[in-house]
């Protein structure tokens, strides 16, 4: 196990490096960060002076070596847009995004398992058909639109919740619901279909014949087998949310998370902040992947990690 984690960490490090270097090159080769930063009125001399101050006038290779040296010390430089260390911005905004993800995805996970199981008990029944229809609707509604709809209904019309911003637990409800809706739909449909498959297996019939209670059959025997695919999909949801799917929700609800910050950094050509954000997110995703592999092994000891 230990050697496995070490090896995965090493591979992960290569991935993180690769992603960060791609960003390094792309931000410098395509588009001109200086013209994004400065007002349109700036003269050519002012642009040149600005580029010199932040070191963009040096050859790409020199910049690259400097970047690598700083990377070893985890120094991402100052955000051009916020005029403070880029990593400070990341550490300030990342917890907000994680809070949103935990709430949204947590809600999706907790709700999808019972919903999926109930639907699977009577395939074709009214509950099942309702779940499938609602799930498909949930999958096809754009987050942006759902978010604004929630705001109009719950904040403007009913005045139950605040429209936007962060601060109290009430502020978290609408953005978390919006974020969790698509994963909820996908996970519920997955639990339902895998559960239907499992319930038709011979071992379930054997367990029933032995006289085991329904809750034990579902909760212990069938669910454990469903859990592998469930966890795979959950991991995929988590990673795709982390890798950018919070942007829409954070924008609509003015949630001060990392997704919104990344978006603004791109718009403002803040390459140092972008590098720090991409590095942190890539690092987190590598960690999540390792954690998922370990979890798989714990659920199903037959899985060979090597």
């Amino acid at each position, binding site marked *: 196990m230990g050697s496995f984690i070490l090896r995965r960490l090493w591979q992960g490090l290569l991935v993180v490096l690769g992603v960060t270097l791609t960003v390094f090159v792309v931000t410098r080769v395509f588009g001109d960060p200086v013209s994004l930063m400065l007002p349109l009125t700036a003269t050519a001399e002012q642009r040149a002076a600005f580029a010199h101050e932040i070191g963009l006038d040096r050859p790409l290779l020199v910049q690259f070596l400097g970047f690598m040296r700083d990377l070893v010390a985890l120094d991402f430089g100052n955000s051009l847009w916020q005029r403070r260390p880029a990593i400070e911005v990341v550490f300030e905004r990342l917890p907000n995004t994680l809070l949103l993800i935990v709430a949204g995805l947590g809600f999706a996970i907790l709700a999808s398992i019972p919903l999926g199981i109930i639907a699977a008990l009577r395939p074709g029944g009214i509950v099942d058909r309702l779940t499938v229809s609602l799930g498909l609707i949930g999958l096809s509604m754009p987050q942006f639109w759902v978010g604004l709809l929630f*705001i109009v209904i719950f904040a403007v019309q009913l005045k139950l919740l605040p429209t*936007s911003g962060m601060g109290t637990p009430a502020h978290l409800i609408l953005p978390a619901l919006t974020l969790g809706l698509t994963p909820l739909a996908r996970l519920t449909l997955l639990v339902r279909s895998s559960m239907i498959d499992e319930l038709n297996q011979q071992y379930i019939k054997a367990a029933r014949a032995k006289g085991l209670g329904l809750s034990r059959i579902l909760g212990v025997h069938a669910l454990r087998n469903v859990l592998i695919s469930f966890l795979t999909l959950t991991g995929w949801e988590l990673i795709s949310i982390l890798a950018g799917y919070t942007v829409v929700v954070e924008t609509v609800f003015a949630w001060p998370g990392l997704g919104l910050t990344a978006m603004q950094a791109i718009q403002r050509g803040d390459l140092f902040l972008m590098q720090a954000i991409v590095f942190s997110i890539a690092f987190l995703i590598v960690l999540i992947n390792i954690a998922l592999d370990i979890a798989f092994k714990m659920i199903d000891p037959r899985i060979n990690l090597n």
Partner: protein
Amino acid sequence: MFKHMLAAAVLAASLSAETVLAQSITIAIGSEPSTLDPQLRDDGGERQVNDNIYETLLARTPEGELVPSLAAEMPKQVDDLTWEFNLRQGVSFHNGEPFNADAVVYSVKRVIDPKNNSEQLAYFGTIAGAEKVDDDTVRITTTGPDPILPSRMYWMKMVAPKHAEEGDLAAQPAGTGPYRFVSWNRGADLTLEANPDHWDGAPEIDQVTYRFVTEPGTRLSGLMAGEFDVITNLLPEFTASVPKFAAVSGLETSVFVLGTDNEVTSDPRVREALNLAIDREAMAESLFLGYATVAKGHHVNPRAFGYNDQLQSYPYDPERAKALIEEAGATGKTIGVYGESGRWLKDREQIEAVAAYWREIGLAPEVHIEEFSQYLDTLMGDGPRPDAIFIANSNELLDADREASFIYHKDGPAASNSDAEMAEMIDKARVTTDTEARRSLYHDVFKKGHDLSYTVPLFNLHDIYGMSERMEWQPRVDAKLMVKEMSVTE
């Protein structure tokens, strides 16, 4: 429960009639300040907050007229390169430091110091330095004759020297303005309170909280839900659904810059036809619901110094436009139309509508909507000049030098012509300190630009603000959110 709250509200209302009610408002702005240092960034969010904390030597009235602020009177020009400012006496910064000649000299030197790498150098590039004459008098020198210096001093915020050296200017601002900094929860909100010792008297609103909401639909919802009192950049189509709104002609003017050396657009007849082809009135009505003023033959801000009020807008005459295109033998010719999307109000809609009008008169416009940094490269890069490129040109200093130097001067970053004679006139206007002579130079420049159709001016765009029922405020032409000019009725 509800009854109790109601009773409490009634009680509070009756109490407020006798006691002075502390009035606080919430303003939703589109972006969070990146820093509260008033001298580093060119950042709208930072300005919207700091305009209330810091002050400048000169200010503008809501209608745009330049008036003294921290200066006691308008500056005197000593010689071509030197301007003398007499300072208002008895003013102090929020942290207790006195405002005097030393503070002005420090502020000027700090913003132009290359070490600080201020993005605002774009506005202050001509300033050479500042020197103290006595405690209440400062001389500011320029690298060349600079008639725009007074306007520049309307843009430069004065900081407290000791605090700037020792304090945390980025997070703990201390200016001379009508509002003092209270707190900033990054990402969430920012609060200011009235400065009772302000030299111009304490402002009416006691406390203001800023919220940062990027999405216009969410700002609107917050206003409708009663969370916000003022929201910025209300879309024209939402004016019907808000409790109150106010519109004022803003700083931005949309325009197409034409490539006068390009194959098709080098013919003045084609360029004139491009102007005659567009029904601007109809566009203003359908795209902006009337919240846009048709530009009068040039794209200079109507409030700016040097605006030529004799010019008329190009008429809508598609028949003549078609005839001109035929005469020039350009029927069926392709012209490249460049632009971006999402940066300025209804940018893509304007570009596509105009391209459709151009198609009507027999041309074959090819629309390229580019990603913003790529667009900037097309606009200002070294590549070939586009046939027509869209821009919403903003004029913060309200001086025609902006439009002239940027777009009409052949060496301007966004210029697409090679008119040496016009460049000479602009160069001359830039260093002419005689007001009337300079005005007439600009009039000639814009007349020429109009007659030769160097650009296709479209609209002076209006800024629209949504407000809650209780707000009383007339927005300013320079788009500054001055809380001291607001009041609430309750």
